[in-house]
């Protein structure tokens, strides 16, 4: 008999009609997996530390959910962060955080797993654990279950989270998640202790057990040494899928009852990125570059669309236009999608491969706004960051777009990039201005129409495992000065600017390169009431500032300081395949203003190919 916690359902029925969008708190959607609890041996509560609408749009969660549920005696369920109207009722009525399939309390699960996609979700993790009635500190959890596990890009430096998690999963989760479930199955049968489980887990490649490592600090606050217990490896290497074309892909999604951020089918086309933009963490930590075959992608698209009933499908990757046979792929897909009244949407198309043919194909299906990300205003600075786009590339693509009837263009830039000068900042406006002029250069433009160019300015955030991991983030005064400089210089009203909050970028920078001591600040900030820090309406920088000063830590130490090449990074016991030597040489080249060819033109020996045996990285030729 498929199981559902009826008692919980009854409690929820008492107040859910009064809650905003209750459909996101009740489960039962098509595609959600229900099981007979008596036949399940290991239960995994997959938590996304953000709202239902955001978490349900995330592909990684869908993959691991389907993968684990494919095993008959494993049951993986979904958990999201409820909004305050819900949490208030839950706390008042003594209802703990529950999973959406069984409606069972999260504390009853064997694993409580979080996917950690961005730094600003750290306090939300603590809030969810607390709502579940699970002690937030790992040392206060003595029994074998639940094991609190984290994965996702942020675990490349999980140090600020070490106090709260029992284990982290590094790299791609498809294989290692099942290995972990199997280990738990065995340990439960054998009545193992938590310590025994953790020691065995540490032997699995890609598993980081933070309690088996010890960190010492120098007087100046930098890391002096990281030592490991005999049961743990000196460095933990991330997992990768070697045969990517055969990697597990879900045949069905949980299709939500209510609208979410991306309510559509998503098919992954490639992993890794050939570009090597020096500020981009994803471009390094997801290497090596691997593609699925065109036929695999097309057949997965068909299966997924049929099973979900979605009328929109999107391709997912860091840079879809780098797919080797992108035009062949789009033709094949369009044939199916247009016949079946399905919209094909293509995020992350790059500006320099934005050919007329590709444009025609996306234009056939959907007309939305166009976005380009030159990131920096001058060629000099784009060479520094290795953003391989020329002004001509941007203008050519914009020209095609304007001729195709578009009038709105969005341009993304960063302020505070290494070596940035005032000329680079004025260059941002100059480039935007040229885009405007490109519109008027089109003889066929509709009379009476004018273009709108919106420029989005974010603050550069140095991230681990990038060539810029050594770089300081600009101070608040410096960023404000640069913003003002740009505003004073700008005169064309058709160009509008939006900018990110400095405080948010600062916090992100601190957490991204934080060490274990930062965990204390995360804890205190949460105690003071921080959660959903990525949401404007909930973010309180004041509380964070208090938290840091109460534990005697300076944010500037983590964010605004240049780090020597030989400094021991808090994450130096993590191995993400890319070598530190490579990052240093890329950093030096950046300061010399020298670009690096993309991986398809030439392999730059980043370390990935040599560590994985050469055959895996498919970037070259």
């Amino acid at each position, binding site marked *: 008999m498929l199981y559902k916690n009826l008692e919980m359902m009854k409690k929820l029925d008492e107040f859910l009609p009064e809650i905003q969008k209750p459909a996101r708190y009740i489960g039962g959607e098509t595609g959600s997996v229900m099981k007979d609890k008596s036949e399940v041996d290991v239960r995994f509560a997959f938590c996304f530390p953000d709202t239902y609408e955001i978490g349900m749009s995330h592909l990684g969660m869908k993959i691991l959910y389907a993968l684990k549920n494919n095993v008959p005696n494993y049951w993986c369920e979904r958990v999201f962060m409820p909004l305050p109207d819900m949490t208030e009722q839950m706390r008042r009525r003594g209802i703990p955080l529950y999973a959406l399939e069984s409606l069972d309390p999260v504390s009853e699960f064997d694993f409580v797993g979080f996917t950690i996609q961005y730094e600003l979700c750290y306090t939300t993790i603590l809030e969810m654990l607390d709502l579940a009635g699970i002690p937030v500190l790992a040392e206060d959890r003595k029994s074998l279950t639940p094991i609190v596990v984290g994965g996702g890009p942020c675990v490349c430096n999980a140090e600020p989270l070490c106090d709260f998690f029992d284990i982290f999963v590094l790299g791609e989760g498809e294989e290692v998640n099942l290995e972990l479930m199997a280990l738990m199955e065995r340990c439960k049968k054998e009545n193992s202790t938590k310590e025994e489980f953790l020691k065995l887990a540490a032997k699995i490649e890609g598993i980081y057990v933070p309690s088996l490592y010890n960190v010492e600090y120098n007087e100046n606050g930098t890391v002096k040494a990281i030592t490991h217990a005999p049961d743990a490896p000196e460095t933990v290497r991330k997992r990768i899928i070697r045969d990517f074309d055969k990697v597990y892909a879900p045949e069905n999604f949980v299709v939500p009852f*209510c*609208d979410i951020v991306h309510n559509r089918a998503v098919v992954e086309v490639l992993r890794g990125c050939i570009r090597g933009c020096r500020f981009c963490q994803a471009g390094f930590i997801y290497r090596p570059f691997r593609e699925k075959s065109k036929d695999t992608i097309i057949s997965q698209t068909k299966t997924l669309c049929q099973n979900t009933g979605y009328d929109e499908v999107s391709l997912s990757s860091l840079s879809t236009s780098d797919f080797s046979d992108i035009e062949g792929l789009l033709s094949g897909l369009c044939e199916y999608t247009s016949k079946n009244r399905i919209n094909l949407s293509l995020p992350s198309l790059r500006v320099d491969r934005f050919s007329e043919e590709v444009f025609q194909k996306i234009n056939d299906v959907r007309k939305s706004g166009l976005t380009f990300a030159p990131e920096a205003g001058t060629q000099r600075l784009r060479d520094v960051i290795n953003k391989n786009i020329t002004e001509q590339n941007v203008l050519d693509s914009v020209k095609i777009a304007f001729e195709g009837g578009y009038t709105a263009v969005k341009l993304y830039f960063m302020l505070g990039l290494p070596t940035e000068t005032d000329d680079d900042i004025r260059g941002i406006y100059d480039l935007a201005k040229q885009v405007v002029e490109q519109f008027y250069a089109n003889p066929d433009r509709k009379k009476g129409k004018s273009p709108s160019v919106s420029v989005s300015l974010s603050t550069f955030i140095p991230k681990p495992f990038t060539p810029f991991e050594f770089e300081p983030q600009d101070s608040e005064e410096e960023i404000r000065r640069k913003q003002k400089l740009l505003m004073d210089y700008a005169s064309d009203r058709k160009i509008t600017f939006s900018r990110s909050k400095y405080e948010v970028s600062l916090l992100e920078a601190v957490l991204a390169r934080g060490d274990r001591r930062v965990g204390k600040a995360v804890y205190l900030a949460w105690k003071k009431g921080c959660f959903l820090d990525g949401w404007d309406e909930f973010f309180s920088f004041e509380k964070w500032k208090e938290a840091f000063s109460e534990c005697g830590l300076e944010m500037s130490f983590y964010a605004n300081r240049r780090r020597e090449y030989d400094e021991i990074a808090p994450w130096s016991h993590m191995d993400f395949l890319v070598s530190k030597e490579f990052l240093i040489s890329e950093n030096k080249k950046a300061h010399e203003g020298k670009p690096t060819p993309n991986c398809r033109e030439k392999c730059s020996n980043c370390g990935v190919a040599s560590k994985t045996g050469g055959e895996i990285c498919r970037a070259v030729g």
Partner: protein
Amino acid sequence: MPLVNTRVFFSKRDRAKYISHLDLAGVMQRAIKRAALPVWYTEGYNPRMYTQFMLPLSLGQESLREAVDMRLLEQLPYSEVAERMNDALPGDIRVTEVGVPVFKNTDIAAAEYEITGELDFGQFREFVGREHIPAEKKTKKGVSELDLKQHILFVEVSDKITIRLPAGVDFNINPQLVLDAFSALTGSTAAGSHILRTKILTKNGEEFR
């Protein structure tokens, strides 16, 4: 191509009672797509799958009798349509009947509900026996005063309440309004009660088909 007007009746219970009326169209359309039923799309620049729902149900209320119209592009056995849709729908929505539309949307005049749960039924019986039951109804134009007593078309109270109220595009009384009035006038709570729509009726009291 023949266009076969088709009316699908379905129930909406348990977890599905939290699907809003607005979201229900999407849920149903994706199910139709999964079921690969040949249905008609509107014409024009932005073609949409044609579905037309009758009589919105409030969030949190359950129903045995919901209806949606669609147009099939070919004649299919109704049992097959029901079967294919049930395979594609979430478990808490079940197609109960498929047929040719007999009445128009505007023929709907009333609906019948069953109210169960933790409620003082004796007190409720007294309550509906009053001469007047004043209540405030929120409409688009604001709040209007009305006497519910005049609008209760039928009521029977045992260990559950069976109540018939006006329903339709022009005038609609939500059974929740009756429960709210009950709480307001007697001070007795109706918080633990469940509302289940059991019938949709026409002016002549016939079952809407």
